[in-house]
C-alpha cells in the first residue's frame, strides 16, 4: 500500500528527491515554487501532531457510547442531540470526525513509542556491532540479516495475535522488526567513524569505550538515524492500522483508524464516509511523512560526517 501511494503521490511532490539539480537549471521562479512545495510535508505533519495533541481536548468522544438513533448519518446532518455530524456517523451512531481526531492521537502515540523503542534498541546494538567489530560484529550483523528476511507485518501479526490486545503489545510487535533498520544504519556509521584519528586518539588517551561511543561516534549517526526514524514512523502507523483493521491490534476501547475503517467496510456502498474519510487521513499522513523521510535521507546520504548538503538540499 505504501509503495502504491508513494508512486502515486511521491512523483510530483517528492521535490528535493535524488534527481536534484534539474530544477536548479531552470528559472528562479521554479526554485521558489520548489522550496515552497518542499515545506508542504512539514506543514501537514505538524498539523496532524497539533490535531493529535489538541483535538481530544476540544472534542468529546466515548467509543462505548453508541447513540443508535444517530446511526449512518451522512456528513453535515444533525444528530438527535442537536449537534452537527460534520463528517457523518458510523453504524453505531458514533461521530466519524471525533474518531479521526482520536485516531490521530493513537497513531501518533503508537508511532512515537514504537520508533522510540526500536531506535533505542537498534542504535545501541548497531553501535556496539560497528564499534566492536570482530566476532561481536559478525554475530550481530548476521542477526540483523536474518531478521531482515522476515516479513515485518507477518511477524507483527503473529506476536500481536498470540497475546491479549493492548497498546504495549502492539508497540512491542511493531518494534520487533522496526529496530533492524536503525541497527544497520548505526552500524555502518560506526564502522566508518571508528577509523577516524579522533577515535584512535581518545582510545590512546584511555577514554572508556562507552564514552568513546557516546562522544566520538554516535553524534555522527544522528542525521541518518533521524531520517530513518521518519521513514519508520510512516511504516509503523500503517502497520498499526493494518493490525487494528484485522482486529488483532488495539483493544476496542482505543480509537484507531484501522478499526474505524474496518467498521465501515460493510457500509461501503451506502455510507462511504465511514471508511473513506479515516482512510484519507491515514494515507495523507503516511505520504507526507514518507516524503519528509526521503528528504532527510537524501540530505544525510553522505553519512552525515560534517559534509554539508548543497543549497538545494541534495548531496553531490
Amino acid at each position, binding site marked *: 500500500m505504501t509503495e502504491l501511494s508513494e508512486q502515486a503521490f511521491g512523483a510530483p511532490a517528492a521535490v528535493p528527491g535524488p534527481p536534484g539539480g534539474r530544477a536548479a537549471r531552470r528559472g528562479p521562479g521554479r526554485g521558489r515554487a520548489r522550496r515552497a512545495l518542499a515545506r508542504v510535508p512539514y506543514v501537514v505533519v505538524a498539523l496532524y501532531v497539533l490535531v493529535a495533541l489538541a483535538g481530544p481536548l476540544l472534542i468529546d468522544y466515548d467509543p462505548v457510547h453508541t447513540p443508535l438513533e444517530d446511526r449512518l448519518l451522512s456528513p453535515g446532518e444533525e444528530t438527535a442531540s442537536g449537534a452537527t455530524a460534520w463528517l457523518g456517523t458510523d453504524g453505531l451512531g458514533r461521530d466519524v470526525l471525533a474518531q479521526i481526531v482520536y485516531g490521530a492521537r493513537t497513531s501518533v502515540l503508537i508511532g512515537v513509542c514504537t520508533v522510540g523503542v526500536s531506535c533505542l534498541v537498534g542504535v545501541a546494538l548497531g553501535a556496539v556491532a560497528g564499534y566492536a567489530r570482530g566476532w561481536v560484529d559478525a554475530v550481530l550483523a548476521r542477526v540483523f540479516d536474518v531478521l531482515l528476511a522476515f516479513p515485518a507485518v507477518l511477524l507483527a501479526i503473529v506476536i500481536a495475535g498470540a497475546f491479549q490486545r493492548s497498546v504495549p503489545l502492539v508497540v512491542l510487535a511493531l518494534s520487533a522488526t522496526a529496530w533492524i533498520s536503525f541497527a544497520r544504519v548505526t552500524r555502518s556509521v560506526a564502522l566508518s567513524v571508528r577509523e577516524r584519528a579522533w577515535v*584512535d586518539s581518545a582510545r590512546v*588517551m584511555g577514554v572508556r569505550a562507552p564514552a568513546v561511543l557516546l562522544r566520538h561516534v554516535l*553524534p555522527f549517526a544522528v542525521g541518518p538515524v533521524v531520517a530513518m526514524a521518519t521513514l519508520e514512523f510512516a511504516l509503523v502507523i500503517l502497520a498499526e492500522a493494518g493490525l487494528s483493521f484485522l482486529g488483532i491490534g488495539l483493544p476496542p476501547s482505543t480509537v484507531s483508524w484501522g478499526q474505524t475503517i474496518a467498521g465501515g467496510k460493510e457500509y461501503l456502498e451506502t455510507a462511504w464516509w465511514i471508511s473513506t474519510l479515516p482512510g484519507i487521513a491515514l494515507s495523507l499522513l503516511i505520504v507526507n511523512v514518507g516524503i519528509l523521510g526521503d528528504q532527510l535521507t537524501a540530505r544525510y546520504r553522505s553519512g552525515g560526517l560534517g559534509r554539508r548538503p548543497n543549497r538545494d538540499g541534495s548531496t553531490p
Partner: protein
Amino acid sequence: MTTAVREERPGGTGGALLDVRGLRVTFGGRGRRRRGGFVAVDGVDLTVGPEETLGLVGESGSGKTTVARCVAGLIRPDAGGVHFEGRPLGPAGRRGAAQRAVQMVFQDPRSSLNPRLTVASVIGEAWRTHPAAAPEGDREVALRGLLADVGLGPEVADRRAAELSGGQCQRVSIARALAVRPRLLVCDEAVSALDVSVQAQILGLLAGLRRSHRLAMLFITHDLGVVRQIADRVAVMRRGAVVEEGPTDEVLDAPRHEYTRALLDAALDLNGPGPEGEAA
C-alpha cells in the same frame, strides 16, 4: 639478519623507557595463527631511552606505522610485546597507571580532532579521563597556559577543528597529548601532512617541548630531512624488519645497509634539483 649494524643495542632492558621486543603483527589470515595473512611487522626490536628521540624511517608499507600503533596500544601484536619501564603494556584502555604515559600524535591534523568538539572540550576530556594529570585550581588558566605552550592564543579554545588551520590542529593534538603529562610521545608522520613552513614550526615546537617536558619520542616519518632535525637515533625499517639502527649522524652520513643508502639517494634526488620536494 643484520646483526652487524646493531652494535648500539644494550643487552637487557636496563635503563630503557620503552622496550619493544620481537614484535610481530599480521593482518588478515585465518585462525589463531593467522595463516595466509600479510605480515606487516616481523620481529622488530626497538628501545627508546628516557628523554631520547628515536626516528623510525622507511618507505610506505614498511610497517613503521604498525609499530607506532602497537606502542600506542591500538593494535594487539600477534607475538612479542611492548614494555614500558620494564612492565608490559596492554592494549589501549587497559594500561592502568601507564595509560597516560604513552600518548600519540597522528598524521592527519584535521581528523585528529572530533569536528563537533571545541578545543576546550578536547583538552577537558583528557583531564577528565586522567584526574591525576589535571591541573589543580582554575582549569581555564591552565588551558590558556597549555595552549600557550604549543604556541596558540587563548581565542582558539572556543573553536572547532573546521575553524583551525592544519598547523593549528596539529598544535591542539600535541596540547591534548601533553595535557596528561606523558613520558613518551609517539608521533606518527606528525608533520607529513603539513606544508614545509608549518612543518618546520611544528618540528621546532616538538624539539622545544621535548626539552621542557623531558619527553622521550618515537618519531615515525618517511622524510629523512625531518629525522636529521629531531632524532638522536634512527632505526630504518624495510618490509616489517629493522635493517639498520644507530645514532642519526652515523646512519645518515655513513649508511651501512644498502637499503638506507637507497633511501638517502632517493631523498637526494628529490631534494637536489628543484625546490624542496615532498617525498611521497
